[in-house]
């Protein structure tokens, strides 16, 4: 009879951020092992709390399935002589497989006949192999961070303190780090007690009686429902960020939601500071009114029941109050500290030994920003704002608040700058120049912020590349990949008309003036372009373009990023049309021969065949409007235009012998093809398209 299987690994509190992946891995390992072991089952379900990872497998077969397998032996030539008698080799094979020679048979494989034996393995009882299999699964679990404890050699995420392993009502015996598997599980640390699990099917209800909600979804629902009820009752908006909910979910076994308050006077501290303090440091959910105004309350989840909730709330309030008192002190102190003094302090903070102080970096950012705005011919007002904002963009790094809450860099800068009477656009740019801060974050809204953000990121990339810090594998300590991706995103979002090579030259000039260039420029340029081409490729990949379309576009000039992206989109639509094969083939024939051309000068008098003249006329007539379309960013229409060339190209190649013995004719024909080809390649390298 099929029976359920329960495996529970009881541990000291597992880091919450590891739990979900860990229990998923446990489930995967068990399923894989059962399948490999030919043990049938119907379904699996995972359970996890801070102190346990558990999996229940339903309807596990009591016996392995039998295995019928065919084993290949020697070839027929070796196995039998002309009289059809078995050779020594064949008899030896039969013996080794434990079968009678009479049961051997032949089968063809790749045109050769071989002798085969059928082996029937009778499945053994599941319970006889569970101990070894399960204990291997448990000890081979992989966690992101492992430790040793006591005198044991096993490395594990946290010490194992109990194991429940049941097959039906039977214990699967095993021992790991002197913990003997049994049926005894543990309830809630403070509210419950030890409990003997009768059956896998009673696991959840028996634990619940000991104040443990082991079902992840059920526990989450309990938290969310309590938060919603509280919000409704108080007419609040409680902001539940998913990652914080996930963390809290794996910090408690028996969740009870409660709220606390702080003195309204602390609301004068910027909201971001209050929220960071509550969320990041205390794992509280912040509370807003219906107009999204922050209220002096917080919501937290206790690992326990409703007893003495007031004591718990008061304790939490006291901790938060101490933190907010500190924050308010920093906030007041910081405002008495002039921006110019802060800038002077930046000269004392080392950015990188070879790249100077943060003060040096800021000066480079200003020079690069000024050059970018000059290049973009922004108006005087913007130029002025760029200069000021780039000068003060890092001043908040030396404020006490940012020292205490590093994640508030930029946020505090904006707030303090506004208070100090700086232009609102300039103040905002201090915040914006860090954007996009993470993948999925938005670009700076203002052009001022966009320019400084590009300049800051370019300085990091060129500076690091110049002294040999180039990201490899998982090594990217200065987050240069994110910086480059950020630049690509900003250029696209603002449709900035700034080629990569111009950007590169601007930075190189600044670095040369400061004698900071430690690598040869040509080497730096190729590494720089390669680095950016990967980021651009990522954008194209995220657009779900075909890989051959991406390759076709990436083979062309990628200096103008918005153009690369538009061409990718256009080409994708273009190649997905029907009857595209002939067109692309005709382009490829043109491109192939065009590479043989040594000039692009066409002399009409050398045309001999009518198809030559027709192709020339068609191209000559199309060329200016093609360029017009490209200039107007209408890449798809340009491609559609090129389509018209297919018929004349095909006719051309049918009638004309390009590589004529007559040199004048040959060079003229190649020149015509070279001209057409250079128009095609402006959009993509069609050779890369898979037909």
């Amino acid at each position, binding site marked *: 009879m099929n029976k359920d299987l329960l495996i529970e690994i009881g541990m000291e509190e597992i880091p919450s*951020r590891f739990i979900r992946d860990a229990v998923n891995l446990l489930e995967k390992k068990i399923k894989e092992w059962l399948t490999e072991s030919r043990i049938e089952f119907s379904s699996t379900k995972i359970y996890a709390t801070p102190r346990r990872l558990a999996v229940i497998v339903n309807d596990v077969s009591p016996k392995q399935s039998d295995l019928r397998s065919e084993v290949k032996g020697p070839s027929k030539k070796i196995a039998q002589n002309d009289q059809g008698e078995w050779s020594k080799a064949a008899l030896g094979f039969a013996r080794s497989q434990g079968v009678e020679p009479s049961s051997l048979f032949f089968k063809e494989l790749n045109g050769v006949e071989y002798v085969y034996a059928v082996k029937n393995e009778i499945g053994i009882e599941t319970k006889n192999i569970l101990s070894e299999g399960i204990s291997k699964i448990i000890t081979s679990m992989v966690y992101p*961070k492992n*430790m040793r404890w*006591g005198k044991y050699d096993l490395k594990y995420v*946290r010490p194992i303190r109990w194991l429940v392993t049941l097959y039906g009502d039977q214990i699967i015996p095993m021992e790991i780090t002197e913990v003997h598997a049994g049926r005894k599980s543990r309830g809630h640390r403070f509210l419950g007690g030890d409990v003997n699990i009768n059956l896998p099917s009673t696991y959840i209800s028996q634990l619940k009686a000991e104040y443990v909600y082991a079902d992840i979804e059920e526990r989450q629902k309990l938290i969310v429902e309590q938060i919603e009820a509280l919000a409704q009752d108080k007419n609040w908006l409680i902001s539940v960020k998913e990652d914080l909910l996930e963390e809290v979910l794996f910090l408690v076994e028996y969740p009870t939601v409660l709220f606390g308050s702080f003195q309204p006077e602390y609301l004068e501290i910027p909201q971001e500071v209050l929220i960071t303090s509550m969320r990041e440091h205390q794992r509280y959910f912040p509370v807003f009114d219906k107009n999204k105004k922050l209220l002096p309350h917080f919501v937290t989840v206790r*690992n326990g029941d409703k007893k003495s909730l007031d004591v718990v709330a008061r304790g939490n309030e006291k901790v938060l109050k*101490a933190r907010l008192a500190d924050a308010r002190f920093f906030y007041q102190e910081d405002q008495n500290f002039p921006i110019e003094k802060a800038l002077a302090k930046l000269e004392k903070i*080392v950015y990188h030994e070879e790249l100077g102080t943060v003060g040096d970096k800021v000066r480079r950012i200003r020079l690069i920003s000024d050059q970018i705005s000059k290049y973009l011919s922004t108006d005087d007002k913007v130029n002025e704002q760029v200069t000021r904002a780039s000068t003060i963009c890092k001043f908040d790094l030396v404020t006490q608040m940012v020292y205490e809450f590093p994640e508030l860099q930029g946020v505090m800068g904006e707030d303090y700058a506004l208070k100090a009477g700086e232009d609102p656009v300039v103040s905002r740019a201090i915040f914006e120049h860090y954007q996009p801060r993470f993948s999925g974050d938005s670009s700076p809204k203002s052009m001022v912020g966009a320019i400084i953000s590009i300049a800051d990121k370019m300085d990091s990339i060129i500076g690091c590349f110049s002294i040999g810090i180039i990201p490899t594998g998982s090594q990217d300590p200065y987050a240069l990949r994110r910086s480059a991706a950020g630049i690509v995103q900003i250029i696209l979002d603002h449709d900035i008309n700034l080629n990569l090579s111009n950007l590169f030259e601007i930075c190189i000039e600044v670095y040369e003036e400061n004698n900071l260039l430690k690598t040869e420029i040509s080497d730096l340029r190729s590494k720089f372009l390669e680095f950016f081409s990967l980021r651009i490729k990522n954008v194209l990949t995220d657009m779900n373009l075909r890989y051959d379309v991406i390759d076709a576009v990436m083979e062309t000039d990628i200096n103008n990023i918005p153009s690369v992206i538009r061409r990718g989109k256009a080409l994708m639509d273009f190649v997905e049309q029907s009857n595209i094969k002939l067109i692309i083939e005709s382009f490829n024939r043109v491109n192939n021969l065009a590479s043989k051309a040594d000039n692009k000068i066409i002399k009409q008098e050398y045309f001999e065949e009518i198809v030559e003249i027709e192709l020339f006329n068609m191209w000559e007539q199309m060329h200016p409007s093609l360029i017009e379309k490209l200039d107007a960013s209408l890449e798809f229409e340009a491609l559609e235009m090129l389509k018209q060339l297919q018929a004349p190209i095909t006719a051309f190649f049918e009638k004309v012998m390009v590589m004529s013995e007559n040199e004048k004719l040959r060079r003229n024909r190649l020149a015509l093809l070279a001209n057409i080809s250079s128009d095609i390649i402006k959009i993509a390298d069609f050779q890369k398209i898979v037909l």
Partner: protein
Amino acid sequence: MNFQNMILTLQQFWSEQNCIIVQPYDVEKGAGTLNPMTFLRSIGPEPWNVAYVEPSRRPADGRYGENPNRLYQHHQYQVIMKPSPDNIQEIYLKSLKKLGIHAEDHDIRFVEDNWEHPALGAWGLGWEVWLDGMEITQFTYFQQVGGIDMNPVAVEITYGLERLASNIQDKENVFDLEWVKGVKYGDVFLQPEYEHSKYTFEISDTKMLFTLFNMYEEEAKKSLEQNLVFPAYDYVLKCSHTFNLLDARGAISVTERTGYITRVRNLSRLCASTYLQERERLGFPLLKDEGVSSNE
């Protein structure tokens, strides 16, 4: 419960868990972990169970006695058990109960916190223990000390006595805590808090401190050449405290900082390996002493 009774309760409790109770070590240090009873004794195969109060100096945290929560010097209660007992969490929770903290009336959680002390070449995994949202204890399974892998593994429990007391006595200002009836924490420590802060941030002689650092370092090296671990380690502690004073004064730039930390780390690594070597030479005496390892 007043501060003094908290200490007495913990002393009694851990004594009953077969810990030897030693007295605070007489060299300035930033944390109980730096006490040789922890740093050196947790190395090697010998069982070791110890508990003590450690007044810990953090010059940079000095606030002239004006901040209700930050102190130049605070008190840690430090426990080391090697090998770590299987029920160490339960033992710890029992100690809270002795202090009058009944778990069912509070929210007690073990929140992941991995401890690392670069200058000691030491790290471990564990938690900070939260009592109603306040961190009251650092709970760490040492994995490496002085660059040496732990075998067996020692567990370290560090209670922050002031924080614990502020919850137990329900006080918002550390200086209002009751040390014993009629004597407040501030009565004993407010003046030194002010004076040490003023000295650290305004008066200390930077030039002299740099000289001292170099002298201490030399003396540590000299002692190590003679395999005299304990005297050498005392000078490492002095280096560490001198560095902390200079750092708090803002006298050490970011680049120099790494250099000083490396110097202290190299010395403490050498102390650790020399200690292990010396204990081995002595035949690891505590391995035979059933009295100390009676929890085995």
